[in-house]
């Protein structure tokens, strides 16, 4: 039974050996609200999966369940494949930069390693390399309030990646940024991803962002939160600013918008 669900779910996945599989996962809160219901989803190794949907469709809840910050009320989440070490090595980027305001940029990025018992000296090369890769070299000693919103988010990404996680979870990380900064961070994130191909689950409510970044888009519907449809984004990498203006991109956006509209209409029908 479970195998069927898994194989169905992994239908659009890229790898044969998914990193993790959600088996009819549901979450009902003590308030009686059902945030998620019957979610089957397989995340392949090296995938960049976007969870796209209207607010209240349980995208963030799904992310918290995968991270192990909450437990599902129904179904279960199975970690497989090479990254079986699983949850112990998950990077998380929140909607807000969520930095420690009293710590320098270096100390903020060092934190995950520090909590694993890595000394400042031992961590320094990894931290510096990571800061360099998010284009923040030279800002080691700055404190968060001295940085712009985009720079804070870069620190947050560096902190999530410094442990070389097998899975990166991002919860609408660029939603609060202006469009120019967001485009830049989209491109930079993709560049990082192309170098290392860390498996990523990216929650967003932007069609354009999800098409630009993903290898696969999972469209979700609300009340109760569930998977509505999955769309593979076959456009080749590297994707750059030229991709944003290509007819291929426009066509994909149109298609995803259509599915999203259907998902939201489904809500209206259910509501009646």
């Amino acid at each position, binding site marked *: 039974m479970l195998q069927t669900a898994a194989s169905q779910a992994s239908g659009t996945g890229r790898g044969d050996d998914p990193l993790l599989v959600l088996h009819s996962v549901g979450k009902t809160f003590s308030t009686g609200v059902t945030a998620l219901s019957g979610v089957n989803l397989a995340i392949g190794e090296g995938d960049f999966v976007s969870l796209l949907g209207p607010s209240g469709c349980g995208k963030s809840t799904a992310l918290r369940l995968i*991270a*192990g*910050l909450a437990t599902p009320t129904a179904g279960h989440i199975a970690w497989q494949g090479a990254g079986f070490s699983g949850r*112990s090595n*998950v990077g*998380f980027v*929140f909607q*807000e930069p*969520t930095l*420690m*305001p*009293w*710590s320098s940029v270096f100390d903020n990025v060092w*934190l*995950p390693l*520090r*909590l*694993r018992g890595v000394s400042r000296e031992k961590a320094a090369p990894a931290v510096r390399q990571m800061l360099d890769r998010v284009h923040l070299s030279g800002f080691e000693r700055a*404190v*968060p*309030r001295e940085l712009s919103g985009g720079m804070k988010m870069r620190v947050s990404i560096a902190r999530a990646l410094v*442990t070389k996680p097998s899975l990166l979870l991002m919860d609408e990380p660029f939603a609060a940024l202006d469009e120019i900064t967001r485009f830049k961070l989209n491109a930079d994130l993709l560049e990082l991803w192309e170098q290392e191909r860390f498996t990523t689950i990216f929650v967003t409510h932007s069609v354009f962002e999800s098409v630009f970044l993903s290898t696969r888009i999972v469209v979700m519907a609300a009340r109760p939160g569930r998977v509505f449809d999955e769309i593979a984004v076959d456009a080749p990498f590297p994707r750059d600013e030229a991709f944003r203006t290509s007819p291929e991109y426009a066509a994909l956006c149109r298609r995803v918008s259509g599915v999203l509209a259907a998902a939201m209409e489904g809500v209206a029908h259910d509501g009646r």
Partner: protein
Amino acid sequence: MTVADRPLRGGLDAEEARRIRAQRIERVGRWLFPLLIMAAAIWLWDRICVWNEIPHYILPRPYLVVQTLWTDAALLFGSLLTTLRITFLGLLLAVVGGVGLAVLFTQSKWVEMSFFPFAVVLQVTPIVAIFPLINIYVGNQTAKLLLCAWIVAFFPILSNTTLGLNSVDRNLIDLFKLNRASRWQQLWHLRLPAAMPYFLGGLKIAGGLSLIGAVVAEFVAGASGQSSGLASRIIEAGYRLNAPRLFAALILISVTGILIFLVLSLVSHLALRRWHESALKQEG
């Protein structure tokens, strides 16, 4: 061309120039005006003594108070030292006890729920009313006074630090959980630094309260006549109708309280200036 966009000196428009002028006046005025009012008050005090021919044992003239401060310096500053010792030891114990209890509270909701009401009871009961009991049960004079100063000073530290330890960004707590941080790591790297501004706010209040606690305790204990802090000097001077010394001791206590507040404010500013909103200069 309107008046507003006509270029003025230094390329500033009229509004900016006015703002700079206002800032300059405020910078000077912040010190100057209180000093002027103070000087006027002292002058008026002196005049009232002269105009009404008030005898110095009722209301001494200001210069007499200053003179007493000088002639009785050995006696007064010796007493000040005694009071200061109680104040600082009391504050130190309040910090240790307040922060320690607050940390204990955040480790377990049950401990907090069970013990916080007792802390409130200690806080709301006037120290003057508790003191006779302490007087009966505690023999050592210094211990008595310390206990009083501690009871008065520890509550703001406890309640502020508890609040601070609990007002941590939920996402940061999740981040620590994701990285499998131990309770100790969460406390040391996250909760304590996050509580710092709250603790320092409590400390500023507690510093003044500790002095008040030390003085009040000595007042109540002073009747038994063994202490030698500033409070007993005041009582003594009151009995002997030595008003100049009474005023001198009073001034010493006030100045001490102000100094404690200023020092703690400076400590707070230095500790927070790099990151916390409260210590940042306001712009615009």
